[in-house]
């Protein structure tokens, strides 16, 4: 089991390492944005 304090690096954006948790966060933000747009449209 991985240490909860270590983060798995997926790739680098220039010199900045991007961790798996960050990518998951981006996906969640995109999904929430999409859901918000759908709900807003449904309420019109």
């Amino acid at each position, binding site marked *: 089991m991985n240490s909860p304090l270590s983060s798995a690096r997926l790739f680098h954006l220039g010199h900045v390492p991007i961790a*798996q948790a*960050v990518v998951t966060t981006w996906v969640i933000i995109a999904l929430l944005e999409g859901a918000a747009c759908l709900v807003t449209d449904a309420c019109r």
Partner: protein
Amino acid sequence: MSGHRRLPLTPSRTQAAIEVIVDTVDSQIEATMQVKPGPYRSFIRTLLVFVFVTNWAALIPGVTPPTARLETNAALALLVFLAVIWFGIRVGGIGGYLKTFATPGLIMIPLNFLESITRSFSLFVRLFGNVMSGVFLIGVVMSLAGLFVPIPLMALDLLTDAVQPYIFAVLAMVFIARCSPRLGLYKENFMN
């Protein structure tokens, strides 16, 4: 519903469900900060929904909730730290905001300053500890016992994960109100 002027007067099921969420958060802001929720609702609601969804991302097999990692929680706590300064200055001006550090007396300035930093740390370590411990415990139990043994623990973890966003948002509201003179909560508790 805030910010949407073209909503029909007879709400659909979706609109009714969203309005329940919006009204609940609004009444929570009003009860905690003792102020009209207008300027705060976007920030607090976003925090609440984001932390809730990230915590419950654990339901998807193979996904570790981002809130079980320090960096996500640190970023959220940094947002709260900046929001405290932003709303504090917006409500009381720079002078009013700085004066909040001198309550209840001048002698408290160093302690209040230190507290403004340490409480941000406690905010993200609390969320990290609660979510990470759930993920870790389920991992350990799953590796020791069979496939179905961790299910009650997972249910308990989901409950904890649902409570944490509320705690995070309420603490964010208290921190903002603590540094915003002229808000009801501040007047009631921190003014001489």
